[in-house]
């Protein structure tokens, strides 16, 4: 097997594929990337047995067909360290991958391609296309709320739901929830739900571009596959029952606050400095047209800030984990934000005042 390729053409797909590969692996081959030359196409595959990413690159120069696996991290570090405009030649000799670029020469250990595992897919039960940009926005607006290491393993991922032509993403860690919905031209009228694991979601988001190109999605019983022009992403699904998110959406909150998002975000950031480092609690004190934000820590240090808001309900004092509020402020984009509250022990609903495709629910803290 042999091919020659420009550094830039190899580096970007290699970085994406290597992102899937875990550093610490029990099976040595899982630390490797699979390289396959077929005709004038080079494909790179990385997997951790849960998520698989295949990148395809068109080769400009004639190549010798074959397949081999090489250490992903090392290959990527070599490519990154080479000068921009260099051509890289990789050739397999005596079970070693010999890489030449300019006056540099590297020899990497290899493992046979036959050792490289496939993520079992099974048949797809639904296929649709969606705008890459929109799907990326859907994920970015919700993924921060996924749990990371929860016993309730189904929370360590994101619910994707198709219902009446809409695609909805929901993520929650049990303390806060993020939900975003987009109109997609999906010809499926029933409700269809699946849970994509955390790593799968984060890798998919990295893969999706800013452009308006379409991404093709295939949903199977145990997997999801997304295909863009040059990449095919496959992830196993989480086998579990996601909580009934609609039950969590607060109804009938009578205290509606409108505020400037940037002003609010900056105030939260400042007061957070003197909140408890571990528990991050802050107090919000609402009165007519005024929101007072207060934080203190075990060293008896204190921060306080007053913000003018549009509010004319009864007074309320409520505590929150400031990180949860900041996470929401950081993903919203409109100038104005709307918070709907009811009492100190009930969840708050946060959304942009003009659009309602994104909804955030945050449970308070007892302070």
């Amino acid at each position, binding site marked *: 097997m042999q091919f020659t390729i420009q550094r830039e053409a190899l580096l970007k797909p290699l970085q994406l594929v290597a992102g899937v590969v875990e550093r610490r692996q*029990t099976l040595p081959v899982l630390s490797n990337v699979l390289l396959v030359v077929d005709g004038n196409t080079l494909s790179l595959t990385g997997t951790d*047995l*849960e998520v698989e990413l295949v990148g395809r690159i068109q080769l400009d120069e004639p190549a010798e067909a074959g397949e081999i696996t090489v250490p992903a991290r090392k290959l990527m570090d070599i490519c990154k360290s080479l000068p921009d405009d260099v051509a890289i030649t990789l050739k397999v000799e005596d079970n070693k991958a010999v890489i030449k670029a300019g006056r540099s020469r590297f020899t990497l250990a290899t493992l046979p391609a036959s050792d490289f595992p496939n993520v079992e897919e099974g048949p797809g039960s639904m296929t649709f296309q969606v705008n890459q940009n929109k799907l990326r926005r859907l994920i970015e607006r919700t993924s921060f709320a996924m749990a990371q*290491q*929860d*016993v309730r*393993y189904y929370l*360590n991922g994101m619910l994707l739901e198709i219902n009446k032509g809409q695609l909805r993403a929901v993520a*929650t860690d*049990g*303390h*806060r*929830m993020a939900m975003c919905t987009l109109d997609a031209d999906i010809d499926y009228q029933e409700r269809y739900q699946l849970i994509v*694991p955390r790593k799968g979601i984060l890798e998919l988001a990295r893969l999706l571009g800013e452009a308006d190109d379409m991404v093709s999605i295939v949903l199977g019983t145990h997997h999801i596959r997304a295909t863009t022009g040059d990449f095919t992403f496959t992830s196993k699904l*989480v086998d579990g029952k996601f*909580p009934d998110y609609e*039950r*969590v959406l607060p109804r009938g909150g009578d205290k509606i606050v409108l505020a400037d998002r940037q002003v609010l975000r900056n105030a939260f950031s400042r007061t957070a400095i003197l909140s*408890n480092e*571990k*528990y991050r*609690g802050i107090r919000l004190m609402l009165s007519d047209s005024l929101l007072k934000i207060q934080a203190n820590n*075990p060293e008896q240090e204190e921060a306080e800030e007053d913000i003018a808001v549009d509010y004319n309900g009864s007074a309320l004092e409520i*505590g929150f*984990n400031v990180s949860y509020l900041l996470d929401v402020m950081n993903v919203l984009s409109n100038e104005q934000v709307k918070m709907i509250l009811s009492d100190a*022990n009930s*969840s708050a609903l946060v959304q942009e005042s003009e659009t309602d495709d994104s909804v955030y*629910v945050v*449970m*308070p*803290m*007892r*302070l």
Partner: protein
Amino acid sequence: MLLWSLLDFPSQPAVRKIIHVDCDCFYAAIEMRDDPRLRGRPLAVGGDADKRGVVATCNYEARAFGVRSAMASAYARKLCPDLLIVPPRMAAYREASQAIQAIFTQFTQLIQPLSLDEAYLDVTASESCHGSATLMAREIRRLVQADQGITVSAGVAPNKFLAKIASDWNKPDGLKVILPEEVEEFVRRLPVERLHGVGRVTAARLKSLGVDVCAELLPWRKQDLAREFGSFGERLWQLARGIDDRPLVVESKRQSVSVENTYDQDLPDLQACLNALAPLLEKLAQRLGRLEGEYRVSKPFIKLKFHDFTQTTLEQAGAPVTPEGYRELCIQAFARGGRPVRLIGVGVRLDHAHSLLGEQLNLF
């Protein structure tokens, strides 16, 4: 006296009065109480010898033959052919334990249970028995005997470390009191292996340094002990002087939840171990479901005991708490021994999210 001198030199806190209460061979004692025919003969509570069970506890008649807790039942039978092994009845032990805890509350609310059969009591501020910790310990022992029909041993001392040693001093059915003025002399003669936290390895290292009893530790400077024993060095320095400022942990939090199984036949290879995970994980999920309070998993762990009784525990922060996560841990743990496996344990280490500084409410 000038005001500033009062502020600069606050009075020393009153000497604490700690009682450590330890039931004598608790499980076996409950069995003998409930079935008088078991008295006076070697008895163990634990798993069946034919099924690779382990002795949970045994009575003093069995101990005379060398039978000990955590010993394989089959080996215990070798030491004592007449040993009767009865299966544990956890519900009965829990019931007795709750009744004993209720007795403790007559004397203080500052109780730190260590297990079903032992606890620390801080009676410093208690006015029972005219404030005498010795009389309280006597009364507790009398009440437990009268109410539950079993004996307990108690140790009274100015701190937890000494109280625990004292409760073991006159076992069974004994009481040992270490008065504040006796601490120094008592600790001087104490063998270092009796110190809290000194296991076989540390004891051997101390012996190699010429230290057999605490008196021989006294000339050592704190920094020298720290150099030899790391962070434990400072603790050693304190214990050798009878110092232990640890407060009672009254509201203790669960640190982990786990499930384990000893197999009748060794699991011969990795695949057999992986196949054995599913029922264990199912049990673990049930236990986690019963957890009260708000706990978060910090990491999953797995324990393998190989056929030669060597064992390894592997835990990994960031590893997923899923069947796949445990498979990965199992593969890694098995690779450390590569031998047939007699026991597998799976569990999770827990963090708790409650705090005086704010309790995070849950969505569902």
